[in-house]
Protein backbone atom coordinates (compact mmCIF):
# COMPACT_ATOMS: atom_id res chain seq x y z
CA UNK A 1 0.00 0.00 0.00
CA UNK A 2 1.48 3.32 -1.09
CA UNK A 3 0.45 6.54 0.63
CA UNK A 4 0.34 9.72 -1.45
CA UNK A 5 -0.29 13.26 -0.31
CA UNK A 6 -1.54 15.48 -3.10
CA UNK A 7 -1.28 19.27 -3.21
CA UNK A 8 -4.56 21.00 -2.28
CA UNK A 9 -5.35 22.01 -5.86
CA UNK A 10 -5.25 18.40 -7.03
CA UNK A 11 -7.14 17.08 -4.03
CA UNK A 12 -10.00 19.37 -4.96
CA UNK A 13 -9.79 18.48 -8.61
CA UNK A 14 -9.80 14.74 -7.89
CA UNK A 15 -12.34 14.95 -5.04
CA UNK A 16 -9.75 13.11 -2.96
CA UNK A 17 -8.98 13.29 0.73
CA UNK A 18 -5.82 14.51 2.41
CA UNK A 19 -4.10 11.22 1.76
CA UNK A 20 -4.60 8.74 -1.07
CA UNK A 21 -3.65 5.10 -0.66
CA UNK A 22 -3.01 2.86 -3.63
CA UNK A 23 -1.94 -0.69 -4.33
CA UNK A 24 0.88 -0.71 -6.84
CA UNK A 25 1.72 -3.87 -8.72
CA UNK A 26 5.44 -4.60 -8.95
CA UNK A 27 8.29 -2.42 -7.77
CA UNK A 28 7.27 0.91 -6.28
CA UNK A 29 8.75 3.50 -8.62
CA UNK A 30 7.65 7.03 -9.47
CA UNK A 31 6.29 5.81 -12.78
CA UNK A 32 4.38 2.89 -11.27
CA UNK A 33 2.88 5.03 -8.52
CA UNK A 34 1.85 7.81 -10.88
CA UNK A 35 0.40 5.32 -13.35
CA UNK A 36 -1.70 3.82 -10.54
CA UNK A 37 -2.70 7.25 -9.31
CA UNK A 38 -3.86 8.33 -12.77
CA UNK A 39 -5.73 5.08 -13.23
CA UNK A 40 -7.70 5.70 -10.03
CA UNK A 41 -8.11 9.41 -10.73
CA UNK A 42 -8.16 9.95 -14.51
CA UNK A 43 -8.75 13.67 -13.97
CA UNK A 44 -5.15 13.91 -12.79
CA UNK A 45 -3.76 12.87 -16.17
CA UNK A 46 -1.73 15.75 -17.49
CA UNK A 47 -1.61 17.62 -14.19
CA UNK A 48 1.47 15.98 -12.63
CA UNK A 49 3.12 14.72 -15.79
CA UNK A 50 2.91 16.30 -19.21
CA UNK A 51 0.16 14.67 -21.21
CA UNK A 52 2.35 14.04 -24.26
CA UNK A 53 5.86 13.50 -22.90
CA UNK A 54 4.92 11.93 -19.53
CA UNK A 55 7.68 14.04 -18.00
CA UNK A 56 7.16 15.59 -14.57
CA UNK A 57 5.74 19.08 -14.94
CA UNK A 58 8.43 21.64 -14.08
CA UNK A 59 6.60 23.13 -11.11
CA UNK A 60 5.69 19.83 -9.50
CA UNK A 61 8.07 18.20 -7.04
CA UNK A 62 8.23 14.79 -5.35
CA UNK A 63 9.36 14.59 -1.73
CA UNK A 64 9.60 11.63 0.64
CA UNK A 65 11.48 10.81 3.81
CA UNK A 66 12.80 14.39 3.94
CA UNK A 67 14.43 13.94 0.52
CA UNK A 68 13.73 15.62 -2.81
CA UNK A 69 13.15 12.81 -5.30
CA UNK A 70 12.09 15.08 -8.16
CA UNK A 71 15.18 14.46 -10.24
CA UNK A 72 15.34 10.71 -9.64
CA UNK A 73 14.76 8.57 -12.73
CA UNK A 74 11.08 7.58 -13.03
CA UNK A 75 11.94 3.91 -12.83
CA UNK A 76 14.22 4.18 -9.78
CA UNK A 77 12.86 2.45 -6.68
CA UNK A 78 11.18 4.74 -4.19
CA UNK A 79 12.53 4.63 -0.61
CA UNK A 80 11.74 1.46 1.24
CA UNK A 81 9.60 3.36 3.77
CA UNK A 82 7.41 4.65 0.91
CA UNK A 83 7.15 1.20 -0.66
CA UNK A 84 6.20 -0.23 2.75
CA UNK A 85 3.59 2.45 3.36
CA UNK A 86 5.17 3.81 6.50
CA UNK A 87 6.03 7.13 4.88
CA UNK A 88 3.99 8.98 2.25
CA UNK A 89 5.11 10.25 -1.13
CA UNK A 90 4.42 13.98 -1.21
CA UNK A 91 3.48 15.58 -4.52
CA UNK A 92 4.17 19.26 -4.02
CA UNK A 93 3.44 22.44 -5.96
CA UNK A 94 6.70 24.36 -6.19
CA UNK A 95 6.85 27.68 -4.40
CA UNK A 96 6.99 29.99 -7.38
CA UNK A 97 4.46 32.70 -6.83
CA UNK A 98 0.87 32.61 -7.90
Amino acid at each position, binding site marked *: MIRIILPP*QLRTLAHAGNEVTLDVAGPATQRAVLDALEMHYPVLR*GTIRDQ*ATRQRRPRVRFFACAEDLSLEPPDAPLPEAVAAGTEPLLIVAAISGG
Partner: protein
Amino acid sequence: MNGIRVLVGTRKGAFILTADNERRHWDVSGPHFGGWEIYHIKGSPADPDRLYASQTSSWFGQVLQRSDDGGRTWEAAGNAFEYEGEPGTHQWYDGTARPWEFKRVWHLEPSRTDPETVYAGVEDAALFRSTDGGHTWRELAGLRGHGSGPQWQPGAGGMCLHTILLDPVDPARMYIAISAAGAFRSDDAGASWQPINRGLKSEYIPDPTAEVGHCVHRIAMHPSRPQVLFMQKHWDVMRSDDAGASWHEISGNLPSDFGFVIEVHAHEPETLYVVPIKSDTEHYPPDGRLRVYRSRTGGNEWEPLSSGLPQQNCYVNVLRDAMAVDTLDPCGVYFGTTGGQVYASSDAGDSWTPIVRDLPSVLSVEVQTFP
Protein backbone atom coordinates in the same frame (compact mmCIF):
# COMPACT_ATOMS: atom_id res chain seq x y z
CA MET B 1 -34.35 29.93 -16.65
CA ASN B 2 -35.41 33.42 -17.67
CA GLY B 3 -32.96 36.28 -17.74
CA ILE B 4 -29.21 36.70 -18.15
CA ARG B 5 -26.28 34.50 -17.21
CA VAL B 6 -22.83 36.10 -17.27
CA LEU B 7 -19.89 33.69 -17.31
CA VAL B 8 -16.75 35.24 -15.89
CA GLY B 9 -13.28 33.71 -16.04
CA THR B 10 -10.67 35.12 -13.68
CA ARG B 11 -7.08 34.50 -12.60
CA LYS B 12 -8.33 32.62 -9.55
CA GLY B 13 -11.56 30.94 -10.52
CA ALA B 14 -14.85 31.21 -12.38
CA PHE B 15 -17.93 33.17 -11.37
CA ILE B 16 -21.47 32.95 -12.70
CA LEU B 17 -23.63 36.05 -12.41
CA THR B 18 -27.37 35.82 -12.99
CA ALA B 19 -30.22 38.31 -13.18
CA ASP B 20 -33.72 38.52 -14.52
CA ASN B 21 -34.51 40.50 -17.65
CA GLU B 22 -34.58 43.75 -15.69
CA ARG B 23 -30.84 43.27 -15.13
CA ARG B 24 -30.88 45.21 -11.87
CA HIS B 25 -30.29 42.60 -9.18
CA TRP B 26 -27.54 40.06 -9.64
CA ASP B 27 -26.72 36.83 -7.89
CA VAL B 28 -23.06 35.83 -7.81
CA SER B 29 -22.05 32.17 -7.78
CA GLY B 30 -18.43 31.19 -7.23
CA PRO B 31 -15.58 30.90 -7.14
CA HIS B 32 -15.76 27.72 -9.15
CA PHE B 33 -12.35 26.04 -9.50
CA GLY B 34 -10.91 28.46 -6.94
CA GLY B 35 -7.21 29.08 -7.30
CA TRP B 36 -7.09 28.07 -10.96
CA GLU B 37 -6.91 30.40 -13.93
CA ILE B 38 -10.14 30.22 -15.89
CA TYR B 39 -9.29 31.61 -19.28
CA HIS B 40 -12.72 31.21 -20.79
CA ILE B 41 -16.19 29.78 -20.20
CA LYS B 42 -18.80 29.60 -22.90
CA GLY B 43 -22.20 28.01 -23.33
CA SER B 44 -23.47 26.05 -26.29
CA PRO B 45 -25.97 28.00 -28.40
CA ALA B 46 -27.66 24.66 -29.15
CA ASP B 47 -27.97 23.69 -25.47
CA PRO B 48 -27.38 26.69 -23.21
CA ASP B 49 -26.97 24.56 -20.09
CA ARG B 50 -23.97 22.88 -21.70
CA LEU B 51 -21.00 24.99 -20.64
CA TYR B 52 -17.33 24.49 -21.41
CA ALA B 53 -14.58 25.98 -19.26
CA SER B 54 -10.83 26.19 -19.69
CA GLN B 55 -9.18 25.64 -16.31
CA THR B 56 -5.42 26.10 -16.31
CA SER B 57 -2.47 26.43 -14.01
CA SER B 58 1.22 27.09 -14.48
CA TRP B 59 1.80 24.23 -12.04
CA PHE B 60 -0.71 21.63 -13.17
CA GLY B 61 -1.40 22.40 -16.81
CA GLN B 62 -4.72 22.22 -18.59
CA VAL B 63 -8.04 20.85 -17.37
CA LEU B 64 -11.14 21.10 -19.51
CA GLN B 65 -14.40 21.25 -17.58
CA ARG B 66 -17.93 20.90 -18.79
CA SER B 67 -21.31 21.35 -17.19
CA ASP B 68 -24.71 20.05 -18.29
CA ASP B 69 -26.74 22.10 -15.83
CA GLY B 70 -25.70 25.66 -16.48
CA GLY B 71 -22.71 25.62 -14.14
CA ARG B 72 -24.21 24.12 -10.99
CA THR B 73 -22.11 20.98 -11.34
CA TRP B 74 -19.07 20.24 -13.47
CA GLU B 75 -17.11 17.25 -14.68
CA ALA B 76 -13.65 17.15 -16.16
CA ALA B 77 -13.58 16.32 -19.86
CA GLY B 78 -10.49 15.56 -21.95
CA ASN B 79 -7.27 17.52 -21.65
CA ALA B 80 -5.05 15.79 -24.21
CA PHE B 81 -4.20 18.45 -26.79
CA GLU B 82 -1.57 16.90 -29.02
CA TYR B 83 -0.35 18.54 -32.20
CA GLU B 84 -0.69 16.53 -35.35
CA GLY B 85 2.56 15.12 -36.72
CA GLU B 86 5.88 16.84 -36.16
CA PRO B 87 5.03 20.07 -34.37
CA GLY B 88 7.72 22.12 -36.14
CA THR B 89 8.92 25.51 -34.93
CA HIS B 90 7.74 29.09 -34.65
CA GLN B 91 9.68 32.24 -33.82
CA TRP B 92 10.57 33.06 -30.26
CA TYR B 93 10.75 36.64 -28.99
CA ASP B 94 14.42 36.86 -29.96
CA GLY B 95 13.81 35.60 -33.48
CA THR B 96 15.15 32.10 -32.89
CA ALA B 97 13.16 29.01 -33.83
CA ARG B 98 11.29 27.32 -30.99
CA PRO B 99 9.32 24.07 -31.09
CA TRP B 100 5.56 24.23 -30.75
CA GLU B 101 4.54 23.33 -27.21
CA PHE B 102 1.00 23.18 -25.85
CA LYS B 103 0.47 25.49 -22.88
CA ARG B 104 -3.22 26.26 -22.37
CA VAL B 105 -6.63 26.78 -23.94
CA TRP B 106 -7.42 30.46 -24.38
CA HIS B 107 -10.82 30.31 -26.02
CA LEU B 108 -13.62 27.78 -26.38
CA GLU B 109 -16.17 28.19 -29.13
CA PRO B 110 -19.09 25.75 -29.07
CA SER B 111 -20.79 24.89 -32.35
CA ARG B 112 -23.92 26.85 -33.13
CA THR B 113 -25.88 23.68 -33.82
CA ASP B 114 -24.32 20.73 -32.00
CA PRO B 115 -23.63 20.84 -28.26
CA GLU B 116 -21.11 18.02 -28.59
CA THR B 117 -18.93 19.98 -31.00
CA VAL B 118 -16.62 22.63 -29.61
CA TYR B 119 -13.49 24.36 -30.89
CA ALA B 120 -10.51 25.28 -28.73
CA GLY B 121 -7.98 27.98 -29.51
CA VAL B 122 -4.74 27.21 -27.74
CA GLU B 123 -1.24 28.47 -26.93
CA ASP B 124 1.12 27.70 -28.71
CA ALA B 125 -1.25 28.76 -31.44
CA ALA B 126 -3.36 26.02 -32.91
CA LEU B 127 -7.01 25.13 -33.35
CA PHE B 128 -8.51 21.94 -31.96
CA ARG B 129 -11.98 20.46 -32.34
CA SER B 130 -13.91 18.00 -30.24
CA THR B 131 -17.03 16.28 -31.52
CA ASP B 132 -17.72 14.28 -28.35
CA GLY B 133 -18.43 16.97 -25.83
CA GLY B 134 -14.82 17.76 -25.04
CA HIS B 135 -13.63 14.27 -24.21
CA THR B 136 -11.23 13.95 -27.13
CA TRP B 137 -9.57 16.66 -29.21
CA ARG B 138 -8.06 16.69 -32.65
CA GLU B 139 -6.01 19.47 -34.15
CA LEU B 140 -7.22 21.14 -37.34
CA ALA B 141 -3.65 21.01 -38.54
CA GLY B 142 -4.20 22.80 -41.83
CA LEU B 143 -3.93 26.07 -39.94
CA ARG B 144 -0.41 25.58 -38.66
CA GLY B 145 0.48 23.67 -41.77
CA HIS B 146 -0.53 26.21 -44.37
CA GLY B 147 3.01 27.55 -44.64
CA SER B 148 3.56 30.64 -42.55
CA GLY B 149 3.66 28.90 -39.15
CA PRO B 150 7.45 29.16 -38.77
CA GLN B 151 7.11 32.95 -39.01
CA TRP B 152 4.55 33.29 -36.22
CA GLN B 153 5.76 34.79 -32.97
CA PRO B 154 4.31 35.28 -29.50
CA GLY B 155 2.78 38.52 -28.36
CA ALA B 156 3.42 39.69 -24.82
CA GLY B 157 0.81 37.26 -23.49
CA GLY B 158 2.11 34.27 -25.40
CA MET B 159 1.49 32.89 -28.88
CA CYS B 160 -2.19 32.33 -28.47
CA LEU B 161 -5.11 31.56 -30.73
CA HIS B 162 -7.67 33.68 -28.91
CA THR B 163 -10.55 34.35 -31.31
CA ILE B 164 -12.78 31.86 -33.10
CA LEU B 165 -15.76 33.09 -35.13
CA LEU B 166 -18.14 30.61 -36.72
CA ASP B 167 -20.07 31.95 -39.68
CA PRO B 168 -23.79 31.69 -38.85
CA VAL B 169 -24.80 31.38 -42.51
CA ASP B 170 -22.07 29.26 -44.07
CA PRO B 171 -21.19 26.34 -41.76
CA ALA B 172 -17.96 25.73 -43.68
CA ARG B 173 -16.60 29.22 -43.01
CA MET B 174 -14.77 30.22 -39.84
CA TYR B 175 -12.28 32.83 -38.74
CA ILE B 176 -9.54 32.74 -36.15
CA ALA B 177 -6.99 35.23 -34.87
CA ILE B 178 -3.56 34.72 -33.37
CA SER B 179 -1.22 36.99 -31.44
CA ALA B 180 1.08 37.63 -33.18
CA ALA B 181 0.37 36.10 -36.55
CA GLY B 182 -2.88 37.73 -37.63
CA ALA B 183 -6.28 36.67 -38.83
CA PHE B 184 -7.05 33.57 -40.89
CA ARG B 185 -10.14 32.23 -42.66
CA SER B 186 -11.22 28.76 -43.59
CA ASP B 187 -13.92 28.07 -46.19
CA ASP B 188 -13.84 24.31 -45.82
CA ALA B 189 -14.73 23.74 -42.16
CA GLY B 190 -11.19 24.17 -40.93
CA ALA B 191 -9.36 21.84 -43.32
CA SER B 192 -7.40 24.63 -45.01
CA TRP B 193 -6.72 28.25 -44.12
CA GLN B 194 -5.60 31.48 -45.67
CA PRO B 195 -4.22 34.57 -43.93
CA ILE B 196 -6.55 37.56 -44.23
CA ASN B 197 -4.40 40.49 -43.21
CA ARG B 198 -4.33 42.74 -46.29
CA GLY B 199 -4.66 46.34 -45.19
CA LEU B 200 -3.18 45.82 -41.74
CA LYS B 201 -0.10 47.86 -40.96
CA SER B 202 2.11 47.01 -37.98
CA GLU B 203 5.25 49.03 -37.37
CA TYR B 204 6.65 46.46 -34.96
CA ILE B 205 7.44 43.92 -37.69
CA PRO B 206 10.15 44.30 -40.36
CA ASP B 207 7.63 44.61 -43.19
CA PRO B 208 4.67 46.51 -41.70
CA THR B 209 2.29 45.17 -44.36
CA ALA B 210 3.50 41.56 -44.29
CA GLU B 211 1.06 38.74 -44.90
CA VAL B 212 1.52 37.45 -41.33
CA GLY B 213 3.03 38.73 -38.09
CA HIS B 214 0.30 41.16 -37.01
CA CYS B 215 -0.80 41.21 -33.41
CA VAL B 216 -4.54 40.99 -33.81
CA HIS B 217 -6.21 41.30 -30.42
CA ARG B 218 -9.82 40.54 -31.24
CA ILE B 219 -12.28 40.16 -34.12
CA ALA B 220 -16.05 40.58 -33.91
CA MET B 221 -18.97 40.15 -36.29
CA HIS B 222 -22.71 40.68 -36.24
CA PRO B 223 -24.56 37.46 -37.06
CA SER B 224 -26.78 39.17 -39.61
CA ARG B 225 -23.79 40.25 -41.71
CA PRO B 226 -21.04 37.70 -41.30
CA GLN B 227 -18.99 39.11 -44.15
CA VAL B 228 -18.42 42.31 -42.15
CA LEU B 229 -15.67 41.97 -39.57
CA PHE B 230 -14.36 44.40 -36.97
CA MET B 231 -10.90 44.13 -35.46
CA GLN B 232 -9.07 45.59 -32.52
CA LYS B 233 -5.42 45.22 -33.43
CA HIS B 234 -2.44 45.88 -31.15
CA TRP B 235 -2.77 49.40 -32.47
CA ASP B 236 -5.60 50.36 -34.86
CA VAL B 237 -9.28 49.51 -35.03
CA MET B 238 -10.04 47.97 -38.41
CA ARG B 239 -12.99 46.90 -40.54
CA SER B 240 -13.45 44.48 -43.40
CA ASP B 241 -16.53 44.37 -45.65
CA ASP B 242 -15.37 41.38 -47.65
CA ALA B 243 -14.88 38.56 -45.15
CA GLY B 244 -11.38 39.66 -44.33
CA ALA B 245 -10.04 39.92 -47.87
CA SER B 246 -9.15 43.56 -47.16
CA TRP B 247 -9.21 45.81 -44.13
CA HIS B 248 -9.39 49.56 -43.61
CA GLU B 249 -8.86 51.60 -40.50
CA ILE B 250 -11.84 52.98 -38.54
CA SER B 251 -10.04 54.37 -35.50
CA GLY B 252 -11.31 57.86 -36.30
CA ASN B 253 -11.51 60.10 -33.23
CA LEU B 254 -10.63 57.50 -30.59
CA PRO B 255 -8.30 58.89 -27.90
CA SER B 256 -6.12 55.83 -28.41
CA ASP B 257 -6.54 53.08 -30.96
CA PHE B 258 -4.71 50.58 -28.80
CA GLY B 259 -6.94 48.17 -26.92
CA PHE B 260 -8.04 44.59 -26.64
CA VAL B 261 -11.82 44.18 -26.86
CA ILE B 262 -14.24 44.95 -29.65
CA GLU B 263 -17.90 44.02 -29.70
CA VAL B 264 -20.99 44.60 -31.84
CA HIS B 265 -24.46 45.63 -30.62
CA ALA B 266 -26.88 42.69 -30.73
CA HIS B 267 -29.47 44.48 -32.89
CA GLU B 268 -27.52 47.21 -34.68
CA PRO B 269 -24.78 45.78 -36.89
CA GLU B 270 -23.15 49.20 -37.32
CA THR B 271 -22.93 49.91 -33.58
CA LEU B 272 -19.56 48.98 -32.12
CA TYR B 273 -17.89 49.09 -28.72
CA VAL B 274 -14.21 49.34 -27.83
CA VAL B 275 -12.30 50.25 -24.67
CA PRO B 276 -9.30 52.43 -25.61
CA ILE B 277 -6.14 51.68 -23.66
CA LYS B 278 -3.36 54.23 -23.49
CA SER B 279 -0.56 52.27 -25.14
CA ASP B 280 1.12 48.90 -25.50
CA THR B 281 3.35 49.66 -22.52
CA GLU B 282 0.73 51.50 -20.47
CA HIS B 283 -2.09 49.00 -20.19
CA TYR B 284 -4.64 51.33 -18.63
CA PRO B 285 -7.19 53.85 -19.86
CA PRO B 286 -6.05 57.29 -21.05
CA ASP B 287 -6.08 59.92 -18.30
CA GLY B 288 -7.07 57.36 -15.67
CA ARG B 289 -10.66 57.50 -16.96
CA LEU B 290 -12.41 54.26 -17.85
CA ARG B 291 -14.50 54.92 -20.93
CA VAL B 292 -16.17 52.63 -23.41
CA TYR B 293 -16.33 54.17 -26.87
CA ARG B 294 -19.33 53.51 -29.08
CA SER B 295 -19.67 54.07 -32.78
CA ARG B 296 -23.13 54.04 -34.34
CA THR B 297 -21.67 54.47 -37.82
CA GLY B 298 -19.63 51.31 -38.18
CA GLY B 299 -16.48 53.09 -37.06
CA ASN B 300 -14.57 56.37 -37.45
CA GLU B 301 -17.04 58.41 -35.39
CA TRP B 302 -16.86 57.42 -31.73
CA GLU B 303 -18.52 58.75 -28.59
CA PRO B 304 -17.25 58.21 -25.06
CA LEU B 305 -19.53 56.39 -22.62
CA SER B 306 -18.57 57.13 -19.06
CA SER B 307 -21.74 57.33 -16.98
CA GLY B 308 -21.24 55.03 -14.01
CA LEU B 309 -17.60 54.26 -14.84
CA PRO B 310 -14.70 55.57 -12.74
CA GLN B 311 -13.42 58.84 -14.15
CA GLN B 312 -10.37 59.38 -12.02
CA ASN B 313 -7.46 57.27 -10.82
CA CYS B 314 -8.58 54.22 -12.80
CA TYR B 315 -5.71 52.14 -14.14
CA VAL B 316 -7.25 48.78 -14.98
CA ASN B 317 -7.14 46.95 -18.28
CA VAL B 318 -9.89 45.14 -20.19
CA LEU B 319 -8.52 41.97 -21.77
CA ARG B 320 -9.42 40.66 -25.18
CA ASP B 321 -12.10 38.13 -24.24
CA ALA B 322 -13.65 40.27 -21.51
CA MET B 323 -16.53 42.01 -23.29
CA ALA B 324 -19.86 40.59 -24.45
CA VAL B 325 -23.44 41.61 -25.23
CA ASP B 326 -26.83 40.14 -24.44
CA THR B 327 -29.67 40.00 -26.94
CA LEU B 328 -32.37 41.74 -24.94
CA ASP B 329 -33.85 45.03 -26.07
CA PRO B 330 -32.26 47.38 -25.22
CA CYS B 331 -29.03 45.54 -25.73
CA GLY B 332 -26.98 44.81 -22.62
CA VAL B 333 -23.21 45.28 -22.75
CA TYR B 334 -20.81 43.74 -20.23
CA PHE B 335 -17.09 43.91 -19.59
CA GLY B 336 -14.64 42.82 -16.92
CA THR B 337 -11.43 44.47 -15.79
CA THR B 338 -8.08 43.38 -14.47
CA GLY B 339 -9.15 45.11 -11.24
CA GLY B 340 -11.90 42.55 -10.74
CA GLN B 341 -14.92 44.64 -11.64
CA VAL B 342 -17.62 43.43 -14.01
CA TYR B 343 -19.58 46.35 -15.40
CA ALA B 344 -22.95 46.06 -17.08
CA SER B 345 -25.06 48.40 -19.14
CA SER B 346 -28.71 47.62 -19.75
CA ASP B 347 -29.15 50.56 -22.11
CA ALA B 348 -26.66 49.79 -24.87
CA GLY B 349 -23.83 51.59 -23.12
CA ASP B 350 -25.47 54.87 -22.09
CA SER B 351 -24.95 54.08 -18.41
CA TRP B 352 -23.00 51.48 -16.48
CA THR B 353 -23.09 49.85 -13.09
CA PRO B 354 -20.77 47.28 -11.51
CA ILE B 355 -22.34 43.87 -11.03
CA VAL B 356 -19.41 42.91 -8.80
CA ARG B 357 -16.43 45.01 -7.82
CA ASP B 358 -13.79 42.81 -6.22
CA LEU B 359 -13.27 39.61 -8.16
CA PRO B 360 -9.80 38.39 -9.09
CA SER B 361 -8.43 39.87 -12.30
CA VAL B 362 -10.97 39.17 -15.06
CA LEU B 363 -9.80 37.22 -18.09
CA SER B 364 -13.06 36.67 -19.94
CA VAL B 365 -16.74 37.54 -19.97
CA GLU B 366 -19.47 35.74 -21.89
CA VAL B 367 -23.21 36.32 -21.76
CA GLN B 368 -26.14 34.00 -22.26
CA THR B 369 -29.62 35.38 -22.82
CA PHE B 370 -32.77 33.52 -21.81
CA PRO B 371 -35.58 35.80 -22.98
